[in-house]
């Protein structure tokens, strides 16, 4: 984050997960990336029927188990045991990715390294590292109906992550629909990036300072919507 904003309020991981969970409606099929996105599966109201897909071959699982509970034969893609839920089913790997590639996911939520103005996306390798984990990210990013990136708005060192052009190795082109960060919610549209919501105490102008491309700032920018 920029040094001048170092002490300013920012959403923590759980709150970001809560914000993304708020996007989902009854019947939506959702894949949550490893890490912060995964938390969203625990933050859905119990009367809402959202089907969570995990690429290791489970569809419609329940909450992440508390430590020491659950079975290692029923885990999410991050290896965390999850609860059985009525209606759940299991898929071998090629069918699990038929779900992904076939466009059956309403939402994919992924961590990110860079998101460009036009929705270009990089999340799997820092260029100088020469090795990174693609995993299911390319399939998920290229083939889901809606791709939401959940990430800090800037790096710890204050470098832009929301950029004019992606400089890291691509995950996919023009695939990101929304970015949820620790300070803002941004929609990627044909006209450009539209600032939809800001974290409490943040102004649109401050968010713009932390964002490389020019944001479209409508008059009705809201505070982050958690329910």
């Amino acid at each position: 984050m920029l040094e001048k904003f170092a002490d300013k309020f920012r959403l923590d991981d759980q709150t970001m997960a809560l914000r993304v969970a708020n996007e989902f409606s009854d019947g939506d099929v959702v894949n949550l990336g490893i890490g912060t996105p995964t938390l969203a599966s625990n933050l859905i109201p119990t009367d809402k029927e959202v089907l969570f897909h995990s690429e290791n071959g489970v569809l419609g699982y329940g909450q992440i188990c508390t430590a020491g509970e659950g079975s290692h034969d029923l885990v999410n893609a991050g290896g965390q045991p999850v609860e059985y839920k009525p209606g759940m089913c299991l898929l071998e790997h090629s069918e699990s990715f038929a779900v992904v590639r076939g466009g059956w996911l309403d939402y994919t939520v992924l961590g990110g390294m860079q998101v460009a103005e036009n929705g270009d996306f990089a999340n799997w390798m820092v260029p100088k590292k020469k090795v990174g984990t693609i995993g299911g990210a390319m399939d998920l990013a290229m083939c889901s109906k809606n791709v939401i990136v959940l990430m800090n708005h800037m790096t710890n060192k204050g470098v832009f992550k929301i950029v004019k052009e992606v400089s890291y190795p691509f995950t996919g082109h023009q695939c990101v629909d929304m970015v949820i960060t620790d300070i803002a919610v941004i929609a990627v549209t044909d006209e450009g990036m539209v600032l939809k919501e800001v974290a409490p105490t943040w102004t649109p102008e401050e968010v713009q300072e932390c964002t490389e491309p020019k944001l479209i700032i409508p008059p009705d920018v809201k505070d982050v919507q958690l329910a």
Partner: protein
Amino acid sequence: MAINKIVANLEEAVADIHDGAMIHVGGFGTIASAPSQLLEAVSRLDVKDLTLVSNSGGFGIEIWGEHDIAVLHQTNKVKKHIVSAPVNPLIINDLEKKFRAGELEMEMVPQGTMAERIRAARAGLGGILTPVGLGTVIEEGKQVIEVDGKKFLLETPLKADFALIRAYKADRWGNLIYRGTSRTFNATMAGAARITIAEVEEIVELGDLGPEEIITPGIYVNRVVKRTGAGKASDDYDEVARRAAEKKAKEA
């Protein structure tokens, strides 16, 4: 002679794995879904220059007394690794060390493409067209094919010499069922190799696995071996993560 694919022990199951063999390794990344006892048996063989195909590069730490795929890097068996998730943020694994040292070739494959390339080998397809990877490093060296004005990458089958997989129950025909998310790449890789070897918790009588219940037809499986020892412990994932973090801290 009645069909009987059950072999006496792990050593017999992997005895003909040879220098330079290409090996599918089932599972996803967790020890519960890995053919860990087969991997350990291969690590004890005098073989080299293996090409591995797997989703994950492994953690490389002992978990519940067993080892994941990294044991083959630790014992210097591997020349090349075709992999979707080679490294992970919890630990610098052996694959990463070898790769950085220039001692390992690596081919990175998007996970869905990997699954489909493996299925294509079992299903006798010459290849499949996928949009995934277009405009990324994955495109390099591959044919781009246009169908109805849309572009796709041509991805070719991954057929191995051996497939090492993990299942829950087997019968003597080699029919298999899995448990929960341990189905994953295990079921996908069965039949995608010249010789498929399954490590299972239980061997049951022919007929105990019902026709509607069998996931992998026995014709895809050449050998079945029962796992030894007490089986998997009940440690939870946090424990795995904690110990990985410990090891990383120690090495830093």
